């Protein structure tokens, strides 16, 4: 059963004087997301991630293509669909003067909650978002981390079956990002929610998502599990070694090594999984009598991924 079935979605924005400047934000995107999945849309800034998510969330009407979400057409049955979905974004913002609990209650009422049910839901969300101590704080006095937690709490107010998260860890400190990610993972675990999130952090997509779609310039360039993608585009972690002697020809044939290149005195080996391959390589080098002067492990960054994808 599909949560999202999108076919050939096209969206062009018109801006500037008389709308003469055109931006093709989506140029034919097809996507299928099964129920219960955490699906990642990964891509650099301006790739079209927010545009795609906004179309799914009925905030933007597509120019072409069809989108069916939870069995509803996003354009014709938007009203029905809105009850069953919700959205949070990393750069969300709410009314500056309202307090945390008031904001949650306001959005609760928009979904028809009232009386004791509403009060209980607000309490529950304050607890889930660890916002209890801040319930009376006006929005404009919250820290970025708290704002993000409030935004996520707000998106759970109607207990949605399908949740859209647009860059949920944007601008957060690393330790807070980690908590946010575990929170997102628990939503699926505990409530069976389907989650579609966008991010431009490779690691985030890898850690959270069952499946990832790479999007760039309005096109999906690749999709699959993170393992699939790494195999498909042969991108992996990079182990940089300073060796003595510096040239070890068999290295590129070693198990798990995708390719090797020499640059500024080091051998850069791209491997499928650094955690597994590093001890193996070190053992092999040692037994061949090669001295290892220095080791660095680097995760591939998104830029590299796209360089690979563009080929």
């Amino acid at each position, binding site marked *: 059963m599909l949560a999202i079935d999108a076919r050939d979605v096209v969206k062009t924005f018109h801006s500037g004087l008389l709308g003469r400047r055109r931006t093709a934000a989506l140029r034919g995107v097809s996507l299928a997301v099964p129920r219960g999945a955490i699906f990642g849309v990964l891509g650099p800034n301006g790739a079209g991630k927010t545009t795609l998510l906004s179309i799914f969330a009925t905030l933007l*009407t597509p120019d072409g293509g069809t989108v069916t979400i939870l069995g509803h057409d996003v354009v014709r049955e938007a009203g029905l669909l809105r009850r069953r979905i919700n959205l949070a974004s990393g750069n969300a913002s709410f009314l500056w003067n309202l307090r945390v609990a008031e904001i949650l209650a306001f959005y609760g009422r928009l979904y028809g909650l009232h009386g004791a049910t509403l009060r209980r839901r607000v309490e529950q969300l304050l607890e889930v978002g660890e916002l209890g101590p801040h319930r009376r704080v006006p929005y404009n006095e919250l820290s970025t981390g708290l704002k993000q937690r409030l935004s996520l709490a707000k998106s759970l107010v109607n207990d949605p079956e399908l949740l859209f998260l647009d860059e949920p860890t944007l601008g957060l400190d690393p330790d807070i990002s980690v908590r946010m990610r575990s929170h997102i993972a628990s939503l699926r675990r505990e409530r069976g929610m389907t989650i579609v999130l966008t991010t431009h952090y490779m690691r985030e997509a890898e850690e959270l998502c069952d499946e990832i779609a790479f999007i760039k310039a309005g096109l999906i360039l690749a999709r699959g599990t993170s393992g699939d993608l790494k195999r498909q585009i042969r991108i992996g972690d990079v182990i940089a070694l300073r060796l003595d002697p510096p040239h070890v020809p068999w290295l590129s044939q070693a198990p798990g090594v995708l390719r090797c290149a020499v640059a500024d005195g080091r051998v850069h080996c791209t491997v499928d999984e650094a955690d597994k391959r590093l001890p193996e390589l070190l053992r092999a080098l040692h037994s061949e009598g090669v001295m290892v002067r220095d080791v660095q492990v680097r995760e591939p960054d998104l830029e590299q991924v796209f360089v690979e994808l563009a080929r």
Partner: protein
Amino acid sequence: MAVWAFALRNLQMASRNVFLLFELLFWPVVNVMSIGLLTRFLGLSGPEISFVLTGTIAFNTLQVCQLDVAYALLYDAWSKSMKHQFVAPIGVRHLTVGAWIVGMVRGVFVFLLQALLARWAFGFDPLGAGPLPLAAFLAGCFLTAWVIGVLVCALVMLVGLRAETAAWASINLVLLLAGIYYPISVLPGPVAGVAAAIPLTYFLDAYRAHYGFVPEFRAPLAVGFLLAAGYILVSHWALVAAVRRARRSGLLLKLSE
């Protein structure tokens, strides 16, 4: 529930805003006093004073109510939170009606304040026309306020926040034509035509009849309510269409970032 959500939100925002004092107390008082003193300086007669002050009071009452309706959308535009309410299963009617209810409460407050002031300082009693004419007059102010507020919302949804000032200005201009300070018969032909198309004109006319002025129109209340109903439909439709367009053009998202 959604209607109540928007009403409550306007109340909460208003209760924390220092400008509230200006909207509710300062401007109404200043306007009634300055116009009232002007009538005294010009040596106007009692009926003339009530004619002019009726206009001032109607204008201020309408203005306060109209602000609330426009705020329903402007708060979200200013705070860039627009998308969160439009991802929810609500219609714009929830938004505008909820805000309008608060606008009427504030409007009644402003009206009473001005009425008492006018009676005390200038001997004109706006409450003296009796409950039914008074109710019709206030209804006229509030219905016109709803239309204006919704049109401001529609303009903002159509062109974004840069329309804000222009929207206020042009709509206030139209309002001033509604015979607030003069019978519309003094206006030159085409302008009088515009004034005759504004519902408030008829409500003012009907109300002033209770203070001894000969009505300019036949059955002004019936025409006023009919016109208002027409404008309400048109402005509501305009806002619905503007929101639909904003979803297509991406402005709904622009107002959220």
